[in-house]
Every structure is written in structure tokens, then in C-alpha cells.
């Protein structure tokens, strides 16, 4: 058993099936699909509230998604812990600022990578809330419910993502 937990990688099919079972559990125990991106809205709202005061709660979007710690915020915190546990067990936990594939194309400067990651993060956060979900909320939870909105959104995630990656790395890489 422990040997298995210490492995670096599992079969993607086994991992996928596990995530599918986790979705069923989330529906059954919490009456919720798994999703991540509203956690960022709520956290962002909590930070805004800490800086600008309780008036932030009156913003139209935060009346819809109240800036408090909810199920989804706990889920995202859990992801950090679970991944840390997996990486520690397999001995792959490592501080890394510049992924090798990025370095091979854009160089080893950590500031360039951090700036690009920040800009990408802004678009990701904006786009996820714009579309009403992310790779988990739409990409897995929505598509498995056969929601029309989710199939359209996930197609656009990959159309935009493939096009942008091809441009960034030079088409045909």
C-alpha cells in the first residue's frame, strides 16, 4: 500500500476514475459538483473587504457569491494539502520557479516567468468567472452532467489554449 502511495505517477485513467468517484461523492454528500473558481472570487472579496471595509459585500457580484469561507474555499485549500502530501510521499516536492519547458523557450530569468504567470493568472481568473466555471466546474463537473454551457465552455478553453500555446511556443513544436 505505502509503496503505491510513494509512486511518482499513477495511470491517468486510474486518476481520472478516482476523480469521477469523487464527483459522485460530492453530489451525494454535499449536493454539489466539484468546482474551484468561485473560491478565488470569494477569497478576492474577503481580501477586498479586509482593505476597503464591509461595503465590499454590497457589490453586485459579492451579493451573488458572498465573500466567506465556504465548501469550495475549503476544497481549494484541500487541493494544496493533498498535492503536498502526494509530492512529499513520492519525494518529488521541490521549490521550482522556472519550469524547464518555459526555460528552454524563454530563458532562465525567474522574473520573466513570474510576470508571465501573473498575467496568465489574471486572464485565467477573469475568464473563469466570465465563463462561470473552470476546468473542474465546467470541464469535468459540467460536462459529466451533460450541461450545454459546459460543453461550449470547455471547447473554448481548449481552442483558446491550443491557439495561445502554439503562438507562444511557435506552431508545430
Amino acid at each position: 500500500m505505502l509503496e503505491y502511495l510513494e509512486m511518482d505517477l499513477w495511470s491517468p485513467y486510474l486518476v481520472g476514475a478516482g476523480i469521477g468517484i469523487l464527483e459522485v461523492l460530492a453530489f451525494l454528500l454535499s449536493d454539489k459538483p466539484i468546482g474551484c473558481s468561485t473560491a478565488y472570487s470569494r477569497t478576492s472579496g474577503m481580501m477586498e473587504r479586509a482593505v476597503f471595509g464591509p461595503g465590499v459585500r454590497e457589490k453586485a457580484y459579492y451579493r451573488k457569491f458572498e465573500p466567506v469561507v465556504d465548501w469550495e474555499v475549503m476544497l481549494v485549500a484541500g487541493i494544496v494539502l493533498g498535492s503536498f502530501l502526494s509530492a512529499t510521499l513520492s519525494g518529488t516536492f521541490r521549490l521550482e520557479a522556472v519550469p524547464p519547458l518555459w526555460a528552454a523557450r524563454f530563458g532562465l530569468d525567474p522574473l520573466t516567468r513570474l510576470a508571465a504567470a501573473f498575467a496568465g493568472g489574471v486572464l485565467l481568473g477573469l475568464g473563469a468567472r466570465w465563463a462561470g466555471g473552470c476546468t473542474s466546474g465546467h470541464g469535468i463537473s459540467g460536462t459529466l452532467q451533460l450541461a450545454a454551457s459546459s460543453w461550449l465552455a470547455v471547447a473554448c478553453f481548449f481552442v483558446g489554449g491550443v491557439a495561445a500555446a502554439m503562438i507562444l511556443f511557435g506552431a508545430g513544436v
Partner: protein
Amino acid sequence: MLESFRKNDRLQLIIGLFIGIIFGFLLQKGGVTRYEVIVGQLLLADFTVLKVMASAVITGMIGVHLLRSLRLVKLHPKPGSVGSSALGGLIFGVGFALLGYCPGTIAGAVGQGSVDALLGGFCGVLLGAGIFAELYPRLEEKVLRRGEFGDKTIPEILGVSSWLVVIPAALIMIGLLLWIEELGL
């Protein structure tokens, strides 16, 4: 009993955390918390992301629809529109490629020690979500409702029983995965 369980707020927070821990563990073991794997998928060179997502969808789709047929769970499809799902999806995609993680896997990347995910991406996603909250009233009025089609599911649109879509969809996705393996991707 299930109802009182679902309404116990404190218990639900613990369940959220617990499901998150297993989710993060699986994402890391699947390799999808790595920049190389996500960007490799977007460059159509490494199909790990698709393999994980498709097998999660097949398993979850069958499981959730089974429980729904047994009246144990309800579906929660999200509403959509061209202005929201398609335009937002494209913006998300560009950010996905530039960052190399998504909102779930970035939390996993933080857990495995990816500093670019923590200092760059995580802060960026929070700011992006904040910008959306700021723009929301204007976007809602001008963009998000363009081409609205509501929270319909594909079986509802086709006017058929959900199993008539679930079974073919599962078979098509299994076929796609077999084909990808056949191609050695």
C-alpha cells in the same frame, strides 16, 4: 438523513476539505499539476490532461446519472450564453496557456512547490477574479446575456431520456481514448 447531513454547515466544510485533499492527491499523482504536462497538452504533444479528464467524465457521468435515476442526487447544470461561456472560455484558454495551470491544478502546483504558481499565478487569479467582480454589473448588461440558452442539458435540448445521451457519450469517449492509445500519444 442525507438532507440533514447536507444542511450541517460545519460538517460540509470538513467534507469540502476532505474531498479537496483527495482531489489534490489525485491531481498530483496524475501529473496534471505540472507545467510541462498542461502545456504539453495544449501543444498537442502529451495527452495526459485529456486522459484524466475524459476518464473522470465517463466515471462521474455514469455514477451521477445512476444516483439521479435512484432519486438520490439532483443535477446542477450552469446557465450559459455565447457572450459568457464562449467569450469567457476563450479568455480562460489564453490564460491557461500563458500560466500553464488552471484554477484547480494551480493549487496543486503550489502544494508540490511550484513557486511560479504561488507568487505569479495564484496572485494573478485572485486579481483576475476581483477584476471580474468589479466589471460584473457592466458585463452582465452588455455581454454576458448575449445568446443566452439557459441551464439546459443536452438530453433536455434533444428531448430524450438522459441515458440515451449518457451511454453513447461514454462509448464515444472510450473510443477516443482507445484511438489516442493506438496512436501512441
